[in-house]
C-alpha cells in the first residue's frame, strides 16, 4: 500500500463517522477502529527505512497557485508518535467504558482527535499540518466541555483560548515564512535553513524579523507542551477533563508540542533558537523545577500528576534547548547531542504511555471512591486492593525514573546528553528529579500505605477486564526499560540524520 499514511489519518475520521451513527454501541466501533489504527501504526513502524530519512513519502499537488503540496512522510520520530497516539487512544477508549451520555458523539470526537494526531505526526507541509493541529484541538475542547468535571466550562475555554493564541502565533510566523520563501514545506524550509539562506531571505522580504518569527513558532509549541510560564491552562484542564481525555491530552496531545519543536522549530529556526538559548534554557529549567515543586503542594491527585507531566516534558524541552549550540565538530559534543535527542524521543514515548497509564489508574480509583481524588482522603488502599496498588506502583515507579523501567532510560539519556552541553541547567534540573521522586513517594505513601480508613475497607480491587487492559501497558514499560533498543534502533538513525542537517 503506497498511501499508508493517508490511510492512517483518514481511518479514524471514518471511524468517527461510523461511531456517530452507531449510538450506544459506539465504544465497540471505537475499539475496532483504534485497534486497526494501532495495527497500521505498527506496520508503518516496521516498514521504516533505517537511514533516518523520511519514509513512505506521499506527495501530490494540492493548491497549485500557492505551490502547496499534499506531502506526508514519517521518520523514526513520526512513526513512534503514530504508535503512541494509537496506543493512547486505545487506552482512552478502554478507559471510557462508563461513558453513558451521548456515547456516539463522545467516541466520534475521540476518534476525530486521533485523526488529528495522526495527521499532525505525518504532515510535512504546514498547510495541512496546521489543519490537523487545529483539528485535534476542537474535539478536545468539546470532550472537556461536555463530559468534564464541575468547572469544565472555564477550563475548556481556558484550554481553547491558550492553544488558539499559540496557533495564531504559529500561523502568522509560517505565513511570513511563505511570503519570504514561497514554500511552506517543512523539508524545503529546513533545507534553506540548513544552507543558511533562510534568514537572509526573510530579512530581504520582511526586514530583520527572523527572531520574532522563531518566537511566534515557539509560542505555539510552548503553550501546547507546556513551557512555563505558558502552562497555566494545563492543571485546570487536566483536572476538569474526563479522565480518559486527560490520558489523551497528556499522553498524546502534549507530544504534539514537542514534536512540533523537533520537526518545525529546530530544523527551521535552529539558528534563532541558539540565539535565544539562554532564555529558553532558563524557562525549561523553571518548568522542570517549578513543575515538580507545584506537584508537591497539590491536594488533588489529578493535579499532582498534571504538574508532574509538566515536569517530565520539561526534561524534553531542556534537552532540546541544550542541543541548540553551533556545531563544533567535536565528536564528544555530537555524541552528547545525539544522546540528548534520543532521550527526548524516548521520553516522549515513555511519558506518553506512563502518564496515560497513571491517569487510567486514577480513573479506576475515582470510580471506586465516588469521584473524589483528594490525596489526603485515601490511605492503606494496598490492603483492600493489592493488585491495584501493585500495578499502579509499577507505573508510578516508571514515572519516578526507577532503573529497570522505561522512564529511567530516557531520563538518563537526557541528562547524559545535557550535562556536557549545559551543565548549569542540568545541575539545577536535577533538583526536579529529586522533587518528583519525593512527590511520587509521597503519593504512594499517602494512598497505598498506612492504616486503612474505615470507609475504604471494602475498596474494590481491579476486576479482570481492567487487569487485562492494563497489563500489556505495564509489560511494555518493563520491556522498554530493559530493552530500549527496541525503539532506539529506529530513533537513533533519525537523530543522527537530523543532526547532520541542522544548522544552529
Amino acid at each position, binding site marked *: 500500500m503506497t498511501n499508508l499514511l493517508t490511510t492512517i489519518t483518514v481511518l479514524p475520521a471514518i471511524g468517527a463517522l461510523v461511531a456517530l451513527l452507531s449510538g450506544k454501541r459506539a465504544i465497540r466501533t471505537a475499539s475496532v477502529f483504534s485497534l486497526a489504527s494501532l495495527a497500521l501504526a505498527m506496520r508503518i513502524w516496521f516498514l521504516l527505512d533505517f537511514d533516518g530519512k523520511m519514509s513512505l513519502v506521499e506527495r501530490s499537488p494540492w493548491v*497549485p*497557485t500557492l505551490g502547496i503540496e499534499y506531502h506526508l512522510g514519517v521518520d523514526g520520530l513520526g512513526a513512534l508518535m503514530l504508535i503512541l497516539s494509537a496506543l493512547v487512544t486505545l487506552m482512552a477508549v478502554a478507559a471510557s467504558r462508563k461513558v453513558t451520555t451521548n456515547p456516539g458523539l463522545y467516541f466520534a470526537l475521540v476518534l476525530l482527535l486521533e485523526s488529528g494526531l495522526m495527521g499532525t505526526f505525518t504532515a510535512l507541509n504546514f*498547510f495541512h499540518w496546521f489543519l490537523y493541529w*487545529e*483539528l485535534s484541538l476542537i474535539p478536545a475542547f468539546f470532550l472537556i466541555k461536555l463530559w468534564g468535571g464541575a468547572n469544565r*466550562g472555564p477550563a475548556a*475555554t481556558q484550554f481553547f*483560548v491558550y492553544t488558539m493564541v499559540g496557533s495564531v502565533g504559529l500561523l*502568522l510566523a509560517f*505565513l511570513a515564512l511563505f511570503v519570504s520563501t514561497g514554500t511552506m514545506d517543512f523539508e524545503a524550509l529546513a533545507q534553506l535553513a540548513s544552507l543558511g539562506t533562510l534568514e537572509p531571505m526573510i530579512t530581504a522580504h520582511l526586514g530583520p524579523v527572523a527572531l520574532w518569527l522563531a518566537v511566534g513558532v515557539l509560542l505555539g509549541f510552548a503553550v501546547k507542551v507546556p513551557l512555563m510560564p505558558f502552562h497555566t491552562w494545563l492543571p485546570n484542564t487536566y483536572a476538569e477533563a474526563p479522565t480518559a481525555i486527560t490520558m489523551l491530552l497528556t499522553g498524546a496531545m502534549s507530544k504534539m508540542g514537542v514534536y512540533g519543536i523537533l520537526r518545525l522549530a529546530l530544523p527551521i529556526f535552529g539558528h534563532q533558537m541558539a540565539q535565544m538559548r539562554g532564555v529558553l534554557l532558563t524557562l525549561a529549567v523553571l518548568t522542570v523545577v517549578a513543575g515538580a515543586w507545584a506537584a508537591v503542594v497539590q491536594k488533588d491527585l489529578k493535579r499532582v500528576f498534571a504538574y508532574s507531566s509538566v515536569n517530565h516534558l520539561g526534561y524534553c524541552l531542556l534537552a532540546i534547548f541544550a542541543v541548540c549550540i553551533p556545531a563544533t565538530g567535536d565528536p564528544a559534543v555530537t555524541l552528547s547531542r545525539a544522546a540528548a535527542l534520543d532521550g527526548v524521543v524516548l521520553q516522549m514515548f515513555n511519558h506518553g504511555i506512563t502518564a496515560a497509564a497513571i491517569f487510567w489508574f486514577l480513573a479506576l480509583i475515582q470510580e471506586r471512591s465516588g469521584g473524589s481524588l483528594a490525596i489526603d482522603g485515601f490511605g492503606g488502599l494496598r490492603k483492600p486492593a493489592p493488585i491495584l496498588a501493585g500495578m499502579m506502583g509499577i507505573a508510578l515507579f516508571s514515572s519516578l525514573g526507577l532503573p529497570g523501567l522505561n522512564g529511567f532510560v530516557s531520563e538518563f539519556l537526557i541528562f547524559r546528553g545535557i550535562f556536557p552541553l549545559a551543565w548549569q541547567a542540568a545541575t539545577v534540573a536535577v533538583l526536579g528529579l529529586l522533587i518528583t521522586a519525593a512527590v511520587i513517594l509521597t503519593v504512594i505513601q499517602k494512598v497505598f500505605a498506612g492504616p486503612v480508613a474505615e470507609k475504604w475497607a471494602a475498596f474494590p480491587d481491579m476486576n479482570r477486564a481492567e487487569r487485562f487492559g492494563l497489563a500489556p501497558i505495564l509489560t511494555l514499560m518493563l520491556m522498554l526499560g530493559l530493552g530500549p533498543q527496541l525503539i532506539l534502533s529506529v530513533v537513533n538513525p533519525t537523530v543522527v540524520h537530523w543532526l547532520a542537517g541542522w544548522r544552529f
Partner: protein
Amino acid sequence: MLAYTIYLSFAGALVLALLPRVAAGFARVFALAIAVAGLAVGLTGFIQAGTSGPVLIADIPWIPAMGIHYTLAADGISRVLVVLTGLAAVAGILFSWTVKERTSEFFAFFLALIGGVYGVFLAVDLFVLFVFYEIAIVPKYFLIAIWGSTRREYGAMKLALYSFLGSAMVLIGLLAAYVMSGAHSMDLHTLAAYQYPVSFQLWAFPLVFTGFAILAGMWPFHTWAPTGHVAAPTAASMLLAGVVMKLGAYGCLRVAMTVFPHGMDPWGWSFLGIGSWRTVFALLAVIGIVYGAAVALVQNDFKFVIGYSSVSHMGLVLLGLMTLTQVGIDGAVLQMFSHGVLAGLLFAVVGCIVYERTHTRDLAILGKLKLGKTMLFAAVVFAIAGMASMGLPGFSGFVAEMQVLMGAWQAFPWFAAVAGIGIVVGVAYTWRALQRVFLNDTPVTEPVEDHAPYAPISWAEWAGVLLLTGTSLLVGLMPRLLLDVIAPAVQALPHILVAGGRG
C-alpha cells in the same frame, strides 16, 4: 450562457410580482426552482469555462450615442462570485420556507435582488454594472422593511441611504472618468487603459473606493451593516452578508482599483506613516477587522454578534485587496466566497433555526433554554459554522484568511500582526456565543415557562445547511477548485495591482 442567471431571476421576480395573491406554496417552490436554475446555469458556466480567461457573454450596443454597450463577460473572479450568488439564493429561499406573510411579494423582491447581484458580477461596461448595482438597492429596502424584525424600518432606511450615498459617490467618479477619458465609452477595459492624470486619480480613487466600500462594510462606514443585518429577515440577512457586501468589495476591485490604480500612489508626504490612500484604506480595513470582532464580543443580541463579525470578515477582504499582491487579492476573492457561504450559514442558524423556534435572540435568555440539549442540530451547525468562519483549517475561511495574511505580510507587516489579533478575538466571540447559547450549563435559577417542543428540523433547513456546510468544507479541502479559476483572473488584472503598486 451565464447571462441567463440574470434574466431568469428577473423573469421570476416579474412573474411573482404580477401574481401577488398566488398561494404561498406555489410562490416558494417557484422561487426555489428559479434559484436552482440560476445556480445550475452559474455552475455550468463555471465548469465549462474552467480556468480560461474572460468569457464574453453579450456585447450589444445599448446607447450608441453615449458609446454605452450592454457588455457582459465573466472572468474567473466573476464566475466564482456568480456561483456564490447562486448558492446564497438557493440557501436563502430554503431558509425562508416559513415566510407566510405576502410570500409572493417576498420572493419577487428576493429574486429581483438576486438578479441585480448577478448583473453586477457579470457586467463589464461600467454603466451596466452601475445600473445593476443600483437595482439591487430597492429590493433590499423592502425585504427588510416589510419582513424584518427589530427596528426594521430604521435598519432598512439606513441601509438604503448608505447604499445610495455610496452609489452616488461611485457615480460621480464614473461620470468624471467617462468625461475625462473622452473615449466615448464606459467599457471597463477602455477606461482602465486610459492614463488618467495622477492628480485626478488621487481624488477619484478614494471617492469611488469609499463609495463601494460603504457597501462592503468598511469601518467607519459600516454602521448600516449590523443594524441592517439584525433588522432583516433571515433570507435577507443571508443575502446581505452573503452577496450584497460582496458587491461592494467587488466594485472596489473591479472599478476603483482597476480604473484608478494610481490613486494608490504615495502622496509624497506622510503623516504618522500614512502616505497613500492605499495605506489609509488598509488601515481602515484593519481597524474594521479588530473593531468588528471586539464589538461582536460584547453583544447580547445573537444576530448582532454575527452582524459585527461580518464587518470584521469583510475587513479582511479589503485588507487583501489593498495588499496589491497576487496572493492577497486571491485571498480576498476567496474570502468573499467563503464569507458569503459561512455568514449565510450563521445567519440561517441564528435567524431561522433558532429564532423561528424560540422567538428570542437574547444570549442570556437563549442560554437558559438548554439549546445544547434541546436543539442539538442547531448547536452542531453553529459550532461548525462558527469554527469555519473563525478560520479553522479544513474550511474555506482558513485558506482565504491565510492568503490575505500572506499578502498583508508582504505589504503591511504590522497590519498583518494586528489582523492576527483580530482573528484571535474572532475566535473569542464565536466561542462566547457558542458557550452562552448552546453550552451554557449554569443551573437555571428561575424556571423557564414550559414551551411546546421545538418544531423538528425541516427538510428545507437540512438541505440548506448541507449545501452551505458542504460547500465550505469542499472549498476548504480542495481550494484549487476555486483558486485555479481565481488566480489567472487576478493575474490578468492590471499589472500594478499585483505588483505591490509598482509598475
